[in-house]
């Protein structure tokens, strides 16, 4: 007794036994998985389903009341199961690819075509593995003898002990060839449209990692919370503030990129893939355990069948070479050299490849990291902007530089890498040209900004020395110091020279030098020169005259201002104070430590008698 259900299959109502339906559904699912990576997979499934429906129709026409298990099995047999056309598929495809390239001699390189069926991917080789199949997979991928890779890894294991880590990583990260077989479909990262708030990125991530959906959401939201909680309380150079400022755009940034890059799981096949097999530790453990079980036998077998005969052969060859050295030296030598040369060539080629990828990876990583750092730095510098830039074009240029010239390539490279890793196709040209256009725009604004800034700093003012009268210039000893607990004193972990501190509308620039020279008379003389730059000589003069810098005297101590105050209206035009202290011969000058010798003070000359 069996339950019969009606299904709507390709637009027809089919009465079918429930168990037969299960078989059919499993079959179609397996097809879906098999063709999932294929272009036009929906169409293929549709065609096959259509044909099955037709065959059902024929069966029903014969007068049976419903489709039975046997009918379904018979039809499936005639259509073929994915296992049956697994290999054939790959081969046919590669042949098609080859022939489309052009009428190459048909006898050439079919084996190469077999090996590189599909866009080439790195797999662990299930059929020729000793431990995890990593080495043979690598060898396959680079088209060299697995022995070479094994030797390299062994040297790495025992010689340096470091090859262990890459091996484990590759073991875990690289899919096994077995995973291409049916039923062990790998998971893919999709956006989940069924459970979305904005674009389904978080729910897709949750699906991928088998998490509850609120976990990724929380991760994306945390930066915003901290930012909001701290608002109104933050200090501009506070580390936490810095973090939340850079993280909340960071979260948006990551989210936006994933939104752009990840496909939405639309079809059923996508959704199946999205849920796929769980990528969790348990699974990895199972894989490794499975691999380990056969390890001993395989290693033994490998040594028996491969290494031992080879060693024996080598021994024979070696002894015979030695014995027949005189007679056969030339022929043996050439053949050995040829063989050795090929092996060596392979190794060199492999190293060259690894090296090239490594360099490329480093360059890309460096580029992204550098640009990212630059972007964060510039974003952090934004408060300083109004003290440097004029409103209007310069501002626009600055924003253009920051967003387009610095951030766009970061987004672009990250997008590219993710798309490559996720093997995304389509639209790449559009995306690339969009990024390029935006970046060119950024480059233009960067050039504009530089040109404009260059203009702002074109002229320097007329230098004129002003004497600062000292109360008692004839003292024996003079001391220079900054107010130790002055208004602008503070040490921050993040300090951008020459800016030392910000107020709402004033910035203090520590941009002064002290020069010590020999005095002509017997009294200390203090002169000050103010310099500034501007678009015109006149503007530079104005800027310089606006500098207010005070030196106050308490007995024999000269107190210097900590910095030059610049308001947002005045702008930073490299205002600079040069103090010259003439020290009479035989008298002392002490420069207090808090001025710091490292970069603020430049000593032009000092008398041998001075001591500090």
């Amino acid at each position, binding site marked *: 007794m069996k339950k019969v259900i009606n299904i709507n299959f*390709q*637009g*027809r109502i089919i009465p079918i036994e429930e168990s037969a339906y299960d078989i059919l559904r499993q079959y179609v699912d397996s*097809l879906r998985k098999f*063709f999932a990576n*294929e*272009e*036009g997979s929906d*169409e*293929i499934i549709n*065609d*096959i389903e*259509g*044909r099955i*429906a*037709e065959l059902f*129709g024929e069966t029903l*026409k014969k007068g049976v009341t419903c489709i039975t298990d046997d009918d379904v099995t018979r039809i499936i047999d*005639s*259509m*073929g*199961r*994915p296992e*049956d*056309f697994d290999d*054939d*598929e790959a*081969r*046919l*495809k590669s*042949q*098609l690819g080859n*022939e*489309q390239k052009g*009428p190459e*001699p*048909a*006898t*050439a*390189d*079919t*084996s*190469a075509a*077999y090996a590189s069926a599909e866009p080439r991917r790195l797999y662990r080789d299930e059929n020729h593995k000793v431990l995890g199949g990593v080495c043979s997979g690598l060898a396959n991928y680079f088209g060299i003898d697995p022995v070479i890779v094994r030797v390299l890894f062994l040297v790495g294991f025992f010689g340096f002990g470091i090859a262990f880590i890459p091996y484990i990583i590759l073991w875990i990260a690289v899919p096994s060839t077995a995973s291409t077989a049916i039923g062990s479909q790998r998971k893919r990262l999709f956006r989940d449209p069924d459970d979305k708030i904005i674009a389904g990125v978080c729910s897709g991530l949750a699906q991928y990692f088998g998490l509850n959906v609120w976990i990724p959401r929380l991760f994306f939201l945390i930066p915003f919370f901290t930012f909001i909680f701290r608002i109104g309380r933050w200090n501009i150079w506070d580390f936490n503030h810095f973090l939340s400022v850079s993280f909340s755009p960071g979260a948006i940034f990551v989210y936006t990129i994933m939104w752009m890059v990840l496909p939405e799981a639309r079809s059923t096949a996508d959704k199946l893939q999205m849920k796929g097999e769980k990528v969790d530790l348990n699974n990895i453990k199972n894989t490794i355990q499975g691999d380990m079980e056969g390890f001993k036998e395989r290693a033994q077998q490998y040594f028996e069948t491969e290494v031992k005969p080879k060693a024996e052969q080598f021994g024979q060859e070696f002894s015979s070479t030695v014995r027949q050295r005189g007679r056969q030296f030339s022929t043996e030598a050439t053949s050995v050299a040829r063989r050795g040369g090929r092996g060596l060539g392979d190794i060199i080629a492999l190293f060259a490849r690894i090296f090239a990828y490594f360099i490329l990876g480093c360059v890309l990583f460096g580029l992204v990291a550098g640009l990212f750092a630059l972007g964060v730095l510039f974003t952090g510098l934004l408060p300083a902007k109004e003290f440097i830039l004029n409103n209007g074009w310069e501002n626009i240029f600055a924003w253009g530089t920051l967003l387009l010239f610095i951030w766009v390539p970061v987004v672009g490279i990250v997008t590219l890498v993710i798309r490559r890793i996720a093997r995304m196709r389509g639209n790449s040209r559009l995306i690339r040209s969009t990024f390029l256009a935006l970046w060119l725009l950024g480059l233009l604004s960067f050039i504009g900004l530089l040109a404009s800034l260059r203009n702002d700093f074109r002229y320097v003012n007329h230098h004129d020395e002003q004497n600062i009268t000292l109360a008692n210039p004839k003292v024996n000893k003079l001391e220079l110091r900054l107010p130790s607990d002055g208004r602008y004193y503070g040490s921050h972990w993040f300090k951008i020279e020459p800016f030392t501190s910000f107020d709402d509308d004033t910035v203090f620039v520590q941009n002064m030098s002290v020069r010590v020279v020999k005095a002509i008379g017997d009294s200390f003389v203090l002169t000050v020169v103010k310099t500034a730059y501007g678009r015109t000589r006149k503007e530079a003069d104005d800027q310089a005259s606006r500098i207010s810098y005070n030196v106050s005297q308490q007995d024999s101590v000269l107190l210097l201002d900590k910095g030059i105050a610049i308001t947002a209206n005045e702008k930073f035009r490299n205002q600079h104070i040069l103090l010259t202290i003439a020290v009479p011969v035989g008298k002392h000058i002490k420069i207090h430590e808090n001025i710091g010798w490292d970069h603020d003070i430049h000593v032009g000359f000092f008398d041998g008698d001075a001591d500090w």
Partner: protein
Amino acid sequence: MDIQNTQSQMRKGVLEFCILSIIRQGEVYPSDIVEKMKQANLYILEGTLYPLLTRLKNAELLTYRWVESSGGPPRKYFVMTEKGLAFYSELEHTWKELADAVHALTQPADQAQQDTNPNQL
């Protein structure tokens, strides 16, 4: 060396060529292709044929039209495009060369078995 594997490789190599030559003769329905090939003693699974047709169609070598059928879903009939014809004649040329070469090589030894398999590097 697995003889079945080699044999199936040999067959697969010419499969596409055979399918194209059937379609070249006129509009066909996929299961007719399977039938015709079966008559010629070449066996192909329908499950292998459909993806192949889709690929050829996506490569613009084939095109199709829907034909209503009595008491079933509409059927896809495949027909060759101009591009497909050009492609086919390339294949035909290659096939003739290959056949001649294989013939010339195997005739003296009078043994046409695995030696033709080019898969030995």
